[in-house]
């Protein structure tokens, strides 16, 4: 059940992936990535590490399914309503001072968080002058995100989240249902650009007043977290905001002094100067 993966095998797998496909997982938190590799072996019916390496090297589609599995993609609309409420009540009014607003969602997964933001921006009357850049490592996630399609079964929970977040509209106005799915309103999507960006390897590409990177960097080790926080620092305008996941923290990183806390409980920080 809990077949273990030796440290040597783990490191070799990371190496194989990097050399063959250019994805560098060496900066990921080890215990959790190792656990996911073991789970993936069970999930894909790999009898041995040897077999896994062989398939990895020779079968790109197999590798893609492995990446999909290794990177945790779980997301929700209006996940952590208290965070969105703070965003709406305190941060968006500050962003309103800018004639053109640029927001980056780094590690956006299948887009639920991005559409939540778009809804709040719309309700604040800011959507038309906002450009949202939503990026992820995983192309399959981005494709799904860009389609604006969500499973109908989740809408009940998302509606409750939306109300708790302080949404002022009727949530059902933002989508239309089709069988077991819903498609989000076109207007929400028009100012969003989805594209691939690897936080471990890629560079600064614009300047933002707000960066949301939630529940992404828990999967990184401290060095990679520091690297990403530098990248964000260089990507933020002076006093630009950074939002992390509820259990994520700057406290244990070298970059903590480059940011100041705006809302500690909701993990909203901003770049100093």
């Amino acid at each position, binding site marked *: 059940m809990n077949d273990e993966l030796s440290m040597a095998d783990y490191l070799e797998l990371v190496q194989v992936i990097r050399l063959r496909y250019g994805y560098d997982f060496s900066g990921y*938190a080890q215990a959790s990535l190792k656990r996911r590799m073991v789970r993936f072996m069970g999930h894909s019916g790999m009898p041995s590490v040897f077999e896994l390496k062989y398939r990895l090297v020779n079968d790109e589609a197999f590798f893609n399914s492995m990446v999909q599995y290794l990177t945790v993609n779980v997301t929700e609309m209006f996940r952590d309503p208290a965070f969105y409420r703070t965003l709406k009540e305190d941060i968006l009014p500050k962003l309103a001072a800018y004639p053109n607003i640029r927001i980056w969602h780094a590690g956006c997964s299948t887009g639920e968080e991005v559409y939540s933001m778009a809804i709040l921006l719309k309700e604040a009357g800011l959507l038309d002058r906002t450009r949202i850049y939503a990026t992820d490592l995983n192309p399959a996630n981005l494709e799904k995100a860009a389609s604006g399609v969500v499973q109908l079964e989740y809408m009940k929970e998302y509606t409750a989240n939306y109300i708790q977040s302080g949404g002022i509209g009727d949530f059902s106005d933002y989508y239309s249902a089709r069988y077991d799915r819903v498609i989000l309103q076109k207007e929400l999507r028009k100012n969003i650009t989805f594209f691939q960006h690897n936080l471990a390897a890629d560079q600064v590409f614009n300047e933002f007043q707000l960066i949301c990177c939630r529940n992404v960097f*828990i*999967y990184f080790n401290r060095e990679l977290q520091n690297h990403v926080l530098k990248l964000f620092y260089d990507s933020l305008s002076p006093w630009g905001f950074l939002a992390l996941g509820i*259990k994520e923290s700057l406290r244990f990183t070298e970059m903590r002094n480059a940011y100041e806390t705006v809302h500690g409980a909701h993990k909203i920080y901003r770049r100093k100067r």
Partner: protein
Amino acid sequence: MGAYDIILVGGSAGSLLPVTTILEQLPGDLDIPVVIVLHRLKNVQSEMDRLLSVKKKIIEPEDKEKIVPGRIYLAPQNYHLITETDRTFMLDYSELVNFSRPSIDVTFNSVALAYESRTLAILLSGANKDGAEGLCNVQEKGGKAVVQDPATAEFDVMPLAAINACTDVSVMNIEEIILHIKNNK
């Protein structure tokens, strides 16, 4: 030096009372960390309040927090709590394991790897099988695996699952568990 570097406590339905009893009687000078993983109902605050009424400080760790001896940690709702080999916490928001997040297996398995034979793992009352695999792993790494005596547990599914799955678990009632902690600190 005592026998252990860390104490794990896992439980589900019916475990709140034994957990609070254990916490209340922990030696005041205990100098190893205690990590608690409980299945909690989504958005139910009352159980949590009951735990927090214990006159000991309980911390819900954040990602990358260092595991400090003498502290009592509780796995946060909706995240798996994982320990790294450098003895820091990592929080993981991936799919449920055994219908649970936090899952006892996930935490116990990672602690077995990080603390090996220096682990004391205790599995309490519960109505599902989460924790059995993790407990076996602790024991296989040379740590000590303890279950609450099924006869005294409000729900015996969880302790029984571990007894059936692992080769060597100690069955104790709550008083014996507390005594074991005191004798090995």
